[in-house]
């Protein structure tokens, strides 16, 4: 199982859930691997130089390298997933929504500091030269591609929404948290889906 993490701040919020699901899959005899997307987490690549196309190529290369048969994506990780690969998308989100929250965080922080910034102006800067949002320096290629990237509902992967998992969404939590019950539910949805009919 190739696991593609949530993007940016949401990756931090979902870190425990991601790892707990992988541990449960391991207990069920399913090997999984969680690569860092280039420019994210412990990757040594500069984030400014990334694009969604490159992330997709790298995800496909990782799937081939580890001989993964299925993919599990969390939140925005769906945008980098190989579309033809069977698997699951946990609470998939469009790139535009990921950017919207980050743009908003920046305008709120600017206002607190006594500066006026508008989302529209930040979007233009993002497209032309890139922009740093909530501490993540996004290059123009990644910014522009995220704006138009959306999960493909008719793809090979099955959507698992938060309602099916139960409890409050951990990516919303102001302080990163964990939920063994949610990890149980998410891994159970996957192992049930993998069980021979």
């Amino acid at each position, binding site marked *: 199982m190739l696991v593609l993490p949530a993007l940016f*701040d949401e990756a931090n919020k979902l870190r425990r859930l991601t790892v707990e699901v992988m541990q449960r899959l391991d207990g069920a005899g399913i090997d999984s691997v969680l690569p860092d997307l280039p420019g994210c987490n412990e990757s040594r690549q500069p984030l400014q130089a990334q694009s969604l196309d490159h992330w997709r190529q790298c995800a496909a290369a990782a799937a081939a390298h580890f001989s993964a048969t299925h993919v599990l994506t969390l939140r925005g990780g769906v945008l980098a997933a190989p579309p033809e690969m069977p698997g699951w998308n946990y609470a998939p989100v469009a790139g535009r*929504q990921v950017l*919207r*929250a*980050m743009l*908003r*965080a*920046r*305008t*709120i*922080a600017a*206002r*607190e500091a006594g500066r006026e910034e*508008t*989302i*529209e102006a930040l979007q233009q800067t993002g497209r032309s030269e890139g922009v740093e949002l*909530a501490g993540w320096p996004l290059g123009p290629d990644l910014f522009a591609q995220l704006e138009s990237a959306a999960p493909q509902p008719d793809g090979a992967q099955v959507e698992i929404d938060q309602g099916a998992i139960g409890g*409050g*969404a951990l*990516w*919303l*939590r*102001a*302080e990163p*948290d964990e939920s063994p019950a949610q990890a149980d539910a998410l891994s159970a949805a996957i192992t049930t889906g993998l069980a021979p009919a």
Partner: protein
Amino acid sequence: MTELAPSRSDIDTKLRAILRDVLGLDAERVERFDGDTGLFGHLPELDSMAVAGLLTEMEDRLDIIIEDDDVDGEMLETYGGLLAFAEAKVVEN
């Protein structure tokens, strides 16, 4: 038949549920929030990223659009301010 606009108490319930998810508090504590309960600037964990998530979730669950200009310190400072803002937005919609 026209669909009735969500009642004030419905908006209040949804807003408390969102704050519960964002702040990771139990229902009982969030139930005790009143109009003067301080939010942004009062709760250290409620930083700009958390507020951004809160506003985006309000858009989804209350079916409203929050513009740049709508966001100011007053609406975010207390639970009462946020609720009044949400009610006005839902009516406007």
